[in-house]
């Protein structure tokens, strides 16, 4: 059997997207929690807890875009125009949010600081909503004629995609809140624990609704989930979701520092696995598979050689960065 490059690349790309979602997910969640935490010193602690790592986190998004162009150019050339307004809004929001990191510490007036705080909050929120809309829109399917998107501008804007957007806002919020439970202490930590509890219940509800709705979108998804042999793979997923939910609730109630964040990550990983089970081997539902969208073996192979060396290297950098910045972030620690 020869190497199945499209499968390998689908795995790599899925890994990059998952890495992005969990890493930038808590970043964006912390940004959105600015809506609930308004005290300047708390906001400084929140930003300082993610500042050392956010840029590296976002690099995974660049890899997702670049990797898709390299390995599945057809999917890239259909998805981007299909979700045009959402993608553009996401990029603009990320621009705002990215420089707000830098500029909120440079602003010389309190008004300027508040302005960049606002940019940080709104940028994080808009970017998250857009990502949720794209996810939902992709699941419900994209109209393609020939090799191009053939739908309208707002095809992706449906109750289902809006639900996904709300779910992602809640999910990233939960990641952000549990991250802050891990990385902060005192009153801020206690409040984040409470945020995490209601966000956890809300996200569980969102997971349930999205999970029940998804099979209705496409009969193939339903067959995958409820018929043999797919069910062998799918039946453990709800059980694991329940276990993770219990772990999250238990950790939050019993003063655990790190476990709530890990259980929230487990929810995301399970949700992502669920998506993978539904979609495989589609990359642009309902019609385009990873094999149809793949660039030729000469292209996929060429990048794969580099990816196998360089992506593990990047993981090492990332791990070292998180290890170095471990520990609680304290108020005022950053400012002299």
């Amino acid at each position: 059997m020869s190497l199945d490059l499209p499968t390998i690349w689908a795995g790599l790309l899925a890994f990059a997207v998952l890495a992005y979602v969990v890493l930038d997910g808590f970043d964006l969640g912390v940004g959105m929690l600015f809506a609930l935490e308004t005290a300047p010193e708390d906001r400084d602690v929140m930003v300082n807890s993610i500042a050392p790592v956010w840029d590296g986190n976002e690099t995974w998004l660049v890899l997702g875009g670049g990797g898709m162009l390299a390995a599945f150019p057809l999917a890239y050339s259909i998805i981007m125009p299909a979700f045009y307004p959402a993608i553009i809004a996401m990029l603009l929001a990320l621009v705002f949010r990215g420089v707000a990191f830098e500029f909120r510490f440079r602003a010389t007036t309190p008004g300027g600081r508040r302005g960049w705080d606002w940019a940080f909050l709104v940028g994080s929120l808009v970017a998250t909503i857009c990502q949720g809309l794209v996810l939902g829109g992709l699941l419900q399917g994209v109209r393609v004629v020939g090799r191009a998107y053939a739908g309208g501008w707002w095809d992706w804007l449906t109750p289902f995609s809006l639900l996904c957007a709300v779910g992602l806002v809640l999910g990233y919020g939960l990641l952000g809140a549990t991250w802050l439970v891990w990385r902060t202490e005192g009153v801020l930590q206690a409040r984040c624990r409470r945020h995490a509890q209601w966000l956890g219940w809300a996200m569980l509800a969102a997971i349930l609704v999205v999970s029940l709705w998804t099979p209705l979108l496409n009969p193939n998804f339903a067959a995958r989930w409820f018929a043999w042999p797919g069910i062998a793979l799918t039946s453990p997923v709800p059980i694991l979701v329940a276990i993770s939910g219990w772990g999250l609730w238990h950790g939050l109630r019993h003063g655990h520092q790190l476990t709530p964040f890990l259980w929230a990550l487990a929810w995301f990983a399970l949700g992502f696995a669920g998506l993978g089970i539904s979609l495989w081997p589609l990359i642009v539902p309902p019609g385009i598979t990873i094999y149809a969208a793949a660039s030729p073996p000469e292209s996929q192979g060429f990048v794969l050689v580099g990816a196998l060396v360089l992506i593990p290297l990047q993981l090492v950098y990332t791990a070292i960065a998180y290890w170095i910045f471990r520990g609680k972030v304290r108020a005022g620690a950053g400012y002299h």
Partner: protein
Amino acid sequence: MAPDLTALLLARIQFAFTVGFHIVLPALSIGLASYLVVLEALWLARGGHVWLDLYRYWLKVFSVGFAMGVVSGLVLSYEFGTNWGVFADRAGPVVGPLMGYEVMTAFFLEAGFLGVMLFGMGRVPAWLHMLSTMLVGCGTLLSAFWILAANSWMQTPQGYRIAPDGRFLPVDWWAVIFNPSFPYRFTHMVLASYLSVAFLVGAVGAWHLLRRSAHPASRLMFSMALWMAAIVAPLQILAGDQHGLNTRQHQPAKIAALEGDFTTEPGTPLLLFGLPDMQEGRTRYAVAIPHLGALILTHSWNGTVQGLDEFPPADRPYAPVMFWSFRLMVGLGVLMAGLGLSSLWLRWRGTLYQARWLQWAMVAMAPSGFVAILAGWVTTEMGRQPWTVYGLLRTADSASPIAAPGVAASLIGFALVYAIVFGAGLLYLLRLVARPPAIGEPGPPAGVPVRSAGITPAPAVAAQIPAAEQPNTIKGREP
């Protein structure tokens, strides 16, 4: 589907706008990163606080420019799909892997070591800090390598075959990367980045000399920048000449358009002034020097340069803009070389720091390198038109099926957001350089967060060490 001409034009404007904002920032990063490597190496080799003060002074500028470069670059990596979907589909198998390598080699390297570079001094061993600065510098050059390989392939494609469905498939990666125009474009762009930063640094030095700054770093900036100008500007003119010869060989229509030559004749003249008129097919009000065009472009007195009349009207790039953007670039390049050579004369006379006119001239030239880069970029990219992959895929056939109102709305969004974001960034950069360098220049404020997945312990460690115990920033290397 029939190309929507308004949407196509708007998509082109949008790409030009976002690339135009972006390209200045990598140029700043490339030039400054290398300058910082030199400063740190000199500091380690010679000691003394001046090098370190200068290093820290420019490090702050680098950090702000870098952050803006990251976010504006993120936009571009998705714009190929949003606005140029057909291009992405057809050319993706060739161009995509080059951009994938850019992310994996350059961006990850930069993200990994930027933190040490910004905050690690005094907390990691000197050699490790030097290494980090060098790796970030390498990252900026690698990024230029891959992205210019992709761009050059679009200008002078080779090493591909065309599949029955119209896609470009790679055949020989070595040929794809080292396509005919790549070595010239890469050299030209890297030298341009170095020159741009040299003139920025020189202007800041000159400004503080004019304001009677006592710190020796002001003199040092001024002097180093003029050495660069004296050496690199003439080299750049040579590189530009060679790039031009290469372009004449592979993209003759581009040369004809930027020279405003509509007719083909031996002993082609050089037009100093004129208004190219695409409708009439001639350059009005031309002021010409006979034979000089042939001499420059063919290096022979009676050489023939193809005019635009040799190309069907549908294949002609738009000369009226290119004619002037090219002259703006060349004019600035000649001015830079002139200032560099003047400085050699003044240096020899021993009056380099006394000549006020030179200081004012340097201040006036502060943005000259960046303006020249933009002018050159406009020239070469408009000169690629009407193709995205030269001679093979038309721009009109490359766009996504997005109608004009959608493209217009996103263009307005980009214009608004970039005006706010880059306006604030520019203001902040000007504030940084308006202040003269200080003895014991502080680094980026300790604990103000790193904007990168750096592997530096700086903020975390700094938070744990009481202020009194923190290492004195300029101790250590002082004699």
